[in-house]
């Protein structure tokens, strides 16, 4: 009797576990030729809406394909993906961010797409500089969904009000600081503060260096004086009133409606080109984009994939997944729906084909990216495993520095110590 009960209980448990494990796994193509793809991405509501439309379009052209979607906000996305990766249950196609792709690639979660390039995924109209941004350790782990480039997005009218006719051509860090002095005298911020990791990395690149070393086992620069030089400048901007103090900046952080530029208290912001469209929309007056300060802007500048599409190693329908990525890259109708929301399309032919459909702000972005693309240098390798922790460590010291709690020298030293201890795990 008891044996029977235990047997029943074990049987019930087995059913229970089996039920758990069958969910989520990718189905193989069934006998009638139909295929189910799982695809996951992060983003805003606008992105979810048009992505669903693109998927519907794909399904109408490929009636044998069924597509299951999973989407979330950026933070939630990675929380969902990590356990799926641990359980080998990743969706077939995943949207990858540059700060995470190394981790997923190096842990064997992503498939090398090189064999699919030129076959399922046509890249004839894509520049080598762009497609190579998806290469990590010699393997093509991602196809960029679009590209971005850094720039100074500003309000020309406000700049005139500060007594400056135009952003100087070939701006250097010195002329940038001088410009800040001028605008500060008129009570206007020149910039709204910068994302430390991105712009310090840019600054290092202009010197031929990088934030991380090539192996991802340590920092990519040895001279802490470079840290002092860059963040010292950023702090002087704050001290002379050309950039907001950290408490002011924090109060409005992430709320575009309350940003200094929109409130006509600040002239511009340093950020990625795709962020221009939203800024322009909220500000609702003509804005412009200027190139980054130099010297050696060309060395520092690079085309950054806004995000990648990757195919996971645990997918059982990799070819079908690659076909969908091709659709994303090369289909005109699909890109008319996307409208460059995931960055400027990587295919030249697509860029031309959808140009008439774009809003003015998006056109400005496309033009700026087109102007910068020939000048840009190849991207540094994607950030190594542990980079989210390093970036957070950098943000911490820069915040203390900007609050005036520590000197640039102390900040440089603390950051080096913390970053090296995180990156040492990659050795």
């Amino acid at each position, binding site marked *: 009797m*008891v044996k029977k009960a235990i047997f029943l209980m074990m049987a019930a*448990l087995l059913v229970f576990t089996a039920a758990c494990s069958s969910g989520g796994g990718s189905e193989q193509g069934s006998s009638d030729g139909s295929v189910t793809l799982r695809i996951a991405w992060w983003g805003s509501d606008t992105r979810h809406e048009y992505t669903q439309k693109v998927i519907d379009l794909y399904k109408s052209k490929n009636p044998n394909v069924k597509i299951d979607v999973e989407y979330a906000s950026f933070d939630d996305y990675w929380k969902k993906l990590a356990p799926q*990766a641990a359980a080998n249950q990743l969706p077939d196609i995943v949207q990858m961010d540059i700060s995470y792709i190394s981790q997923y690639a190096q842990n064997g979660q992503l498939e090398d797409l090189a064999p699919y390039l030129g076959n399922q995924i046509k890249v004839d109209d894509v520049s080598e500089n762009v497609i190579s941004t998806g290469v990590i350790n010699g393997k093509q782990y991602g196809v960029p969904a679009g590209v971005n480039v850094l720039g100074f997005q500003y309000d020309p009218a406000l700049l005139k009000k500060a007594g400056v006719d135009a952003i100087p051509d070939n701006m250097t860090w010195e002329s940038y600081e001088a410009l800040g002095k001028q605008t500060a005298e008129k009570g206007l911020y020149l910039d709204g503060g910068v994302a430390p990791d991105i712009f310090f990395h840019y600054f290092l690149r202009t010197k031929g260096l990088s934030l991380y070393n090539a192996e991802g086992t340590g920092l990519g620069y040895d001279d802490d004086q470079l840290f002092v030089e860059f963040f010292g400048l950023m702090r002087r901007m704050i001290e002379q009133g050309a950039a907001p*103090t950290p408490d002011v900046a924090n109060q409005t952080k*992430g709320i575009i409606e309350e940003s200094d530029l929109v409130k006509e208290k600040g002239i511009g912001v340093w950020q990625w080109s795709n962020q221009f469209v939203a800024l322009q929309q909220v500000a609702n007056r003509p804005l412009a984009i200027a190139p980054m300060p130099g010297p050696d802007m060309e060395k520092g500048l690079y085309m950054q994939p806004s995000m990648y599409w990757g195919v996971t190693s645990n997918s059982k329908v990799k070819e079908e997944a690659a076909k969908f990525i091709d659709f994303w890259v090369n289909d005109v109708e699909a890109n008319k729906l996307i409208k460059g929301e995931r960055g400027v399309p990587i295919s030249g032919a697509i860029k031309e084909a959808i140009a008439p459909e774009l809003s003015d702000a998006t056109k400005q972005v496309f033009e700026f990216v087109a102007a910068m693309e020939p000048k840009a240098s190849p991207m540094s390798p994607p950030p190594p495993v542990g980079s989210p*922790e390093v970036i957070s460590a950098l943000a*911490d010291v820069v915040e203390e520095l900007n609050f005036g*709690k520590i000197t640039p020298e102390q900040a440089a030293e603390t950051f080096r110590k913390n970053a090296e201890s995180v990156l040492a795990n990659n050795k």
Partner: protein
Amino acid sequence: MRQYSSLRRNLTGYAFISPFIIGFLGFTLIPMFVSLYMSFTSYNLFTSPRWIGLDNYTKMFFDDPKYWNSVKVTFLYVFIGVPLRLIFALFVAMVLNTGSRMIGTYRTLYYLPSIIGGSVAVSIMWRNLFSNEGVINSALTAIGIGPISWFGDPNASLVMLISLSVWQFGSSMLIFLAGLKNISPEMYEAAGVDGANPVRKFFSITLPLLSPIVLFNMIMQTIGAFMTFVPAYIISKGEGGPMDGTMLYSLYLFRQAFMFNNMGYASAMAWIMLIMIGMLTVAVFLTSKYWVFYESEGGK
């Protein structure tokens, strides 16, 4: 043999509670021990856990200033927030204990914030209230102070977080209210005849008779406060800023686990939190015999 037959006799019972038992084992007990094991490993969710002994604990105690900062912030949050909340809850409970009109409606209204308690919606509302052009700053500007940058100033942001926790006083208030209803009116009448004023009545009758409930509320609220996560996460956009001023323990744990994928370290943090809460609860119980008054024990 007797045990055997009693197991058989109770089999139906076990069958009926098996959903709970399976759930408890599967979702509580086993994960707890797995997390204890993981706290001695380096584990990033991708590669299999690597045994590193006590490294996580030594790093936590000796080599992570951010950890100690999160402990400090959490203690400030708990030891300022909980007493304030209890005082406020008791005060409102006493007001609501008087029999005025529409008292039921008022009780409901005051309880409402706790129902939606730690939710995301409330935290977002709080963010808006304290934003640059929010109600709080407008009011402060009107009386000539401020505006204060609540999310920018490391000291102000914790004040804002504590004010949110005090505002959610409803559940302890309800328990206080029940306790107040249990104090017989004759006591107050007798004290009134002897000439006691309201302050005296409060300290000699209300508070002693309510002390077991104060104890209960204190322990429950302290444990809850230690585990506060959502408000800090929403208000600081997950970063615990500015200058780690709102980096509560659970938020730092969360960041280690899900943003940096340091699952082992986060597990170790979780166990230390368990031990800290346990010790604190024991300490409160030990002191309770000096200040908690049980009628059934004749005032001992």
